[in-house]
């Protein structure tokens, strides 16, 4: 400290004991460029070739807007449902010891491993009006398969492990003494959960939500089987892109894709900001 004169102003690189900063940063940038940036800029490039007026026409097309609404809306609802039940599942897995706990724990990962089309077909068979579950719901006037509700169910299935697997490790780290401290101070169980445990888990829950949501927006395989794919009603944006591609309408396909990209980016950015804010607060 005494030998090197302190340089004023912002410095690009903080000195570190670990060598290889230049090499690893260079590698990371090259890799990210190759894998993510080039394909995405290609997407923007293609849709830009469309011209502003055409782009706007596609973007404001009723069918496009409905498809986007359905994609983002169902993904949001599914992620919200997963946050609630995924947290409960994680809680049960962390807090209780019961026979078969390891099996349940392993089962949580199945939606990761299963080909999504298989999941979609299985769910459709179950929820179709003549399926096991669908036939029970049909007399109550609830239609699941071939409606947005079916999409939500498929996305819940797909997104569950994201919430469980992000919340679980943080939950395992909760110090039992903190709960005991709250109890000795007079807090009842509900107050311990809402005032002591939940705030500590919130950042992990937000991350789980973001992952499940992002996955839901992009999900294709499982949804197309159960959705029924009625234009304006149960057609998701990724499917609309595929339809446009099959029509050789590459410009329209890339335009919808670019819109999805923009929306997703903004939402994930907001979620990240919320997270860094809460990290800073709760250390």
């Amino acid at each position, binding site marked *: 400290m005494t030998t090197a004169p302190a340089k004023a102003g912002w410095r690009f690189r903080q000195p570190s004991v670990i060598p290889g900063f230049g090499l690893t940063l260079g590698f990371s940038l090259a890799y990210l460029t190759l894998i993510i940036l080039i394909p995405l800029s290609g997407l923007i490039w293609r849709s830009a070739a469309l011209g502003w007026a055409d782009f706007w026409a596609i973007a404001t097309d009723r069918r496009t807007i409905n498809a986007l609404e359905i994609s983002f809306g169902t993904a949001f609802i599914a992620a919200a449902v997963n946050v609630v039940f995924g947290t409960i599942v994680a809680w049960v897995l962390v807090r209780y010891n019961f026979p078969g706990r390891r099996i349940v724990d392993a089962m949580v990962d199945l939606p990761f491993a299963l080909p999504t089309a298989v999941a979609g077909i299985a769910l459709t068979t179950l929820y179709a009006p003549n399926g096991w579950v669908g036939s029970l719901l049909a007399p109550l006037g609830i239609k699941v398969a071939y409606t947005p509700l079916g999409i939500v169910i498929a996305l819940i299935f797909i997104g569950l492990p994201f919430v469980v697997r992000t919340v679980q490790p943080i939950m395992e780290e909760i110090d039992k*003494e903190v709960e005991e*401290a709250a109890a000795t*101070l007079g807090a009842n169980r509900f107050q311990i959960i809402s*005032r002591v445990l939940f705030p500590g888990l919130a950042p992990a829950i937000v991350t789980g939500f973001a992952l499940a949501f992002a996955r839901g927006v992009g999900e294709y395989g499982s949804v197309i089987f159960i959705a029924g794919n009625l234009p304006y009603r149960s057609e998701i944006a990724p499917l609309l892109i595929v339809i446009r591609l099959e029509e050789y309408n590459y410009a329209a396909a890339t335009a919808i894709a670019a819109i999805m990209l923009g929306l997703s980016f903004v939402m994930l950015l907001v979620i990240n900001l919320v997270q860094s804010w809460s990290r800073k607060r*709760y*250390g």
Partner: protein
Amino acid sequence: MEVRVANVRKEFDRFPALRDVSLDIKSGELIALLGPSGSGKTTLLRLIAGLERPTRGKIFFGEEDASHKSIQERNVGFVFQHYALFRHMTVADNIGFGLKVRHGPTRPSAQEIRRRASELLDLVQLSGLEKRYPAQLSGGQRQRVALARAMAIEPRVLLLDEPFGALDAQVRRELRRWLRDIHDATGHTTVFVTHDQEEALELADRVVVMSQGRIEQVGTADEIYDTPNSPFVYGFIGESSSVPVKVEDGQVWIADRPIGLSAPQAPEGQATLFFRPHDVELVDGCSGCIAGTVAASRRVAGTRRVELEIGGDRQRVEIELPVDHPAAQKSRVAFRPRRWKLFPAA
């Protein structure tokens, strides 16, 4: 608040952690539970708090049987070794937590809670840190916040589980004195667990020495140190040396020589002699003394510890001599314990 522990037994999976423990804690007393790990001291503390339920026996707060009251109802302040502060709350919110979770008319106004919190922060000498988060405090400061948080609910008794165990020696000594001052100022009945005998003897009005789930002895620091009532306490508290001896005709013998200690009250037969290494007088000739050859000699701070081999079977005992004492240079030393105690051989 007086606390009475009556014939309490606690088992974990059939393994007894406490066997038939009874203890009276006087109101306003500062009492230490001292023992090696596994002695049951923390279990006893947690039973008083209600964090564990006794397998048998009862715990009274004053006249009232608290054994089956929930933790929340007992109104005790508990301080954990690793602080257990709420990470996502500021220091002030941590301290006010116990008041905020109250219901109905017993809950003070937000303003009153803030006032209490800053009052307690003054008491624990952390004024001005209200807005900090626990992660921004040092270990010693965190433990002070934990104590302030426990005191905020006006607890009937204050329980501290190895409160200074995670802190370094310097901070420990400082907090020890500080805890004594706080206790004298507030007068809470306080029970703390420690495995550090220096801490227990210096800080507590009375010390409870525990071993293997039992209370060995309860008494003031002087009583515990000067009149230990069992071989365990003699060995556990302070330095001690022991030699197997024989009692015959009211005299203490090592092998076939009397060592000049008369024990008219002691039962005849095999016994163990305990004494403090520093509490011995050196003698010259040896008619009635313990004599041995010097086997090793170590300098420890202000004294020199000399290990002697005595008797035919070369039993080793340790005595302490002033650093410059000429006896340390000799090959043979004879001494007689000034204060000592006999326990019948087990």
